[in-house]
Each structure stands twice: as C-alpha cells, then as structure tokens.
C-alpha cells in the first residue's frame, strides 16, 4: 500500500488545505530556536576558522577579527609539522580502506544472495557476529600480531588491512540485492552471464546509492581513525592526520594555535566534501529519503 510521504515539506504541502493557518507569523519562535541552535553549533568552528586566519601575536589575544594569515599559518604546519605528510597518509589509508571494504562486501553479498551452498547460514552468522568485535577492544592482541608476528608496525598495511572486511557493508549489499527482482539474475544467467559479469554489468549499476551511502560512512569512519593508528604506527612519516593533530598541539613547548586551527580546518575538509557530494546517495542508499 502506498503511504504518502509528506516529507521535507514542499511548498505544495504548505498550500494544501490545512485546518489551521500556518503563516510565517506563527513560526517566528521556530526560526528563533533554529537560528540560536545553528549559531551555537557553528560557533566553535567559526571561532577556529577566524583564529586560523590571525597572525600569531593576535591569536592569543581576545580579538575575533579575521586576519589574512591563513595560508601563512597553514604553511607553517603543512611542512613544519608534517601536516601535509599526515594528510597524504590519511588519504592513502582512507581510500584503500573505503574501496577495499566496498569490493569485498560486494563479493561477499554476491555469494550470499545468488548462490546456494552448504553452511551458508553459519558463514553469514560468522560475518554478522564480527559486529560485536570492535577493533578498539582487540588492540592489545592485535598489536601483538601486527607488530610482533607480521612486523607491520611501520607499514601502511597495519592501518589498512585489518579494516578491509565489513559486516555492515556485506549486510547492506545483501539487503539491497534481495530487493532486486530475481527475474533479472535469471535472465542474465540464461543470456550466458557469469556471476562476475552479472555483478559488474547489472548489480553494481543498480547499486550506486548503496555504494555511495556505504562510501560515506566508511570514508568518515576511516578518516576519523585515532586509537589504532596512535598505538600501532611507529614511524611518524606514515602517521594519520587525526593523530597528527595531537602532534601539532604538542610540537615544541609553545602551541602555535593559529597554525593548529588552520590544520584542524583543513583536516575537516575531506569528510565534509565527501559527505556533501554524496549526501543524496547517502539518504537514498539507506532508504532514508522517500518511500519506494
């Protein structure tokens, strides 16, 4: 049955017959609350942004006037405190983890949905069960394994490989594939299509929203990694930017706050960009947007 999703209320919804008038006058307090809220939410970031533009003698003072020193500040941490290096490392790690997770989850979901094989339920349970094993809790043993046995402590592999499989991704793609009509895969097989061709020619083109949604959450999660890289990464020139932020603060005796704020602002850009670009896929992929 089709439910009407009166969602993000469009102008049409406002003009539809309503029992009570909802003119702008009644809404002033809603505007007031929302404006106060967004100012409060934005103020720490605005503060950081303004401070990141000030010269180092102004930063420590009370002045909240924007200055013209953003690039100067950024330059001092970019090369001086290795921020550029940290950013590059985070890019490498995040892109590897995000694409690896997507590919591995697609393959796993393909196996779970389009094949019948013995022990399938057990295999699926083994994947789902890992939701209860967050890496943060395994750091002691994982440190032992990766730094002791595998000797990866100064290798990108240490912060990429353990995160390549994704229960969430497998689960999401499986749900999505199950909603694709079975007739499609039957037709594909009759046409002589193998499973991998079917995946690349049919399933993936039909899954961009789910892929996009997953990419957003995996990108943000991988970009935000902090505890594990802090523990495992021995060589500073392979460290990620989140841990790098701590190094920027600690660098030297006196923290150069203008430079640190410039660093924080730049660190914020990639996830913000990914989230903004894929926002539509994000809502649609989770079926958050509108009713089908």
């Amino acid at each position, binding site marked *: 049955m089709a439910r009407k999703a009166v*969602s993000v209320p469009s102008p049409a919804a406002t003009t539809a017959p309503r029992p009570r008038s909802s003119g702008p006058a009644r809404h002033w307090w809603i505007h007031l609350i929302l404006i106060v809220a967004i100012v409060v939410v934005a103020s720490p970031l605005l503060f950081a942004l303004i401070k990141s533009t000030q010269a180092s003698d102004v930063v420590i003072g009370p002045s909240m006037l924007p200055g013209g020193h953003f690039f100067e500040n950024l330059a001092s941490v970019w090369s001086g405190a290795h921020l550029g290096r940290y950013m590059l490392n985070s890019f490498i790690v995040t892109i590897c983890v995000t694409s690896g997770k997507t590919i591995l989850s697609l393959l796993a979901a393909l196996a779970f949905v389009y094949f019948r094989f013995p022990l399938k339920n057990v295999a699926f349970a083994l994947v789902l069960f890992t939701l209860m094993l967050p890496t943060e809790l395994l750091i002691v043993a994982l440190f032992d394994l990766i730094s002791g046995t595998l000797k990866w402590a100064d290798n990108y592999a240490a912060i990429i490989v353990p995160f390549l499989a994704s229960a969430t991704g497998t689960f999401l793609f499986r749900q999505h594939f199950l909603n694709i009509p079975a007739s499609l895969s039957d037709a594909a097989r009759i046409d002589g299509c193998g499973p991998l061709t079917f995946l690349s020619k049919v399933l993936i083109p039909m899954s961009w929203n789910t892929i996009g949604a997953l990419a957003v959450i995996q990108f943000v999660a991988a970009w935000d990694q902090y505890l594990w890289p802090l523990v495992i990464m021995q060589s500073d020139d392979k460290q990620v930017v989140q841990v790098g932020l701590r190094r920027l603060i600690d660098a030297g005796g006196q923290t150069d706050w203008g430079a640190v704020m410039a660093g924080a602002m730049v660190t914020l850009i990639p996830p913000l960009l990914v989230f903004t670009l894929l926002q539509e896929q994000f809502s649609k992929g989770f*079926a958050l947007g509108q009713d089908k």
Partner: protein
Amino acid sequence: MSLTFSRPPRKPATSAAAPPEERATFKSPVLPWLFLLPTFIILAVFLYYPAFRTLRLSLFRSNIILGNETFEGLGQFAELLNSPVYHQVILQTVIYCALVVVIGLLIAMGLAWLASRPIAGAKFYRLMLIYPYALSPAIAGTIWLFLFNPEIGVINNILASLVGTRPRWLDNPLLAFGLVVLAAIWKGLGYNVVFYLAAIQNIPGEVTEAAAIDGATGWQAYWKVVFPLLSPMTFFLVFTNLIYALFESFGLVDILTRGGPVYGQTGITTFLIYQLYEDGFRNFKTGVAAAEAVLMLIMVGVITVMQFRYGNRRVHYGA
C-alpha cells in the same frame, strides 16, 4: 569506527514487504567460497584470532615488552572487579554515556523536528544542522582545547570581560567532565539529526494533520504524536550512540583532557576505553588490559543482542 554507523534500522516498508526469497541463480560449489574468501581471511586473522588471543591474554599476567607470562586464571578479573579505581571508571563511563545519549538525542530530535516544519529556509537549517557529521573526535577535541584554554581561550576572554573570572576548565573535575560531555554531544549532533530527519520524513502527513484537527498544539503534537512515532529510530540511535560514546570518546578525551583531572581514585574523564589504553600501552599491564577488553566485549555483546532482539520488534508506524 565503523560500528558506530552499523545497522541502519530497517524501513517499515521493507519489513511489511514479502520476506526476501532465497536465490540460487548460479550453480557452483567453489565460486561462493572464492568470493567469500577475502572477507573471511580478514575476519579470521584480524578479528577472530585477536579476539581469541585477547581472551587467552586475560587469563595470564603478562608484559608485552618483557614478553613473560604467568597463568592467573580469573585472578585479573577479580582484581579489576574489586578495584576502587576500576569501579570509578565504570561509574563515570556510565554517567558519561547516559548524558551523551539522552541529552544528545533529545536535542537532535527536537531540532530535526523543527527543521522539518514547513517554514522558509528549512532546507538551509537542515544543512546547517547535519554538517557536524564530518567532525572527528580529534578535531572536536583540538578546537575545544583552544576554545576553553584558561589564558587565551575565547570563552575565558569573554567571561573575564563580562564577570571578571577565568575558570580553569580542564583542571576542575566537574567542569572538565562537563566539557567532554558537551563536546561529545556537539560532535554527534550531525549524525543524529541526519537519521531523525529521515525518520520524520517517513511519518505519514495525515497523522500530524489529524492531531492538528483534533486541536493539538504544536507542543502536544510533538510529545504525544511525533515522539512516540520516532521511537523505533530513537531505539536504533540509542544503541549506535552508546557504542559511539564507549569507543569514539577516546580521541576526544586523549586530546582534550588526557583522562584527567584527578578526582577521587583516578582522572574523572578516564573512561573504560581510555583505561584500557593506559593499562595496555602506558603501564604495559597487558593481561589486565586484555581482561578489561573482555569485560567490554561482554558489554558490547549485551548491547548488540538487545538491539537485535528488541530493535526489530518495535512498533512501526504506517502501512
């Protein structure tokens, strides 16, 4: 950590649809295992094996640097559960989680509801509320560390000129605890608003209209109609936020307070995950850290099982 974002709640429409049928389009005894192989290798080597090792380590008193170990049985668990320090860590973690989850969700729900009213600029408001999704705990910690710096932070500059006081935010236990709670709520707001906005979109318009016809004021409609209708989403978010508070607090705490300042037995912002890190990698008490990990694994297990058991049974609205 990906767990924070795991398991979006199933849409009511999907649960109302026919159960997804089993497919066996392709026939091959080998191919499915081949496709699953990379996932299983990763899960086995980097999750199941370390989990098993953690369990084993928790039974030995060991030092990862010296590489020695002696069997302790459940001794380290008994030690932890009898330790006043660990009691305090558990208690402050519970209080922290409760505050972050309850306050964070109440604020997010209210703001998401207001921002989805048919008002001018609603789209702009929604955008301005969800972008904090891109904030990381470490960035939040970094900005707040400067914001609340006693000498040069803007908060104290304002307070000094208004009331002539410069509180030492990060040295006062109560203030430091409050700051960490506020920063965590701020960081989590975008995520919660995104999911609440989505849930509000799925509320059938007739329901709120009917409430309006019956003479409900905006406030009554919110508490009596909208709040209950959002309960499945709230339920989902309680769990994701709990996991978020348990683990992602680490980056925030590590930068903002380093677990301090000391109050009673230990630092007041030393939460379970921070204690685990300290014991494992600062004090090199590997066995104790492993025992703490096992206790937390049990907590996560209970939380996850509860979500799976009760999450899907919740009353759904519509259709």
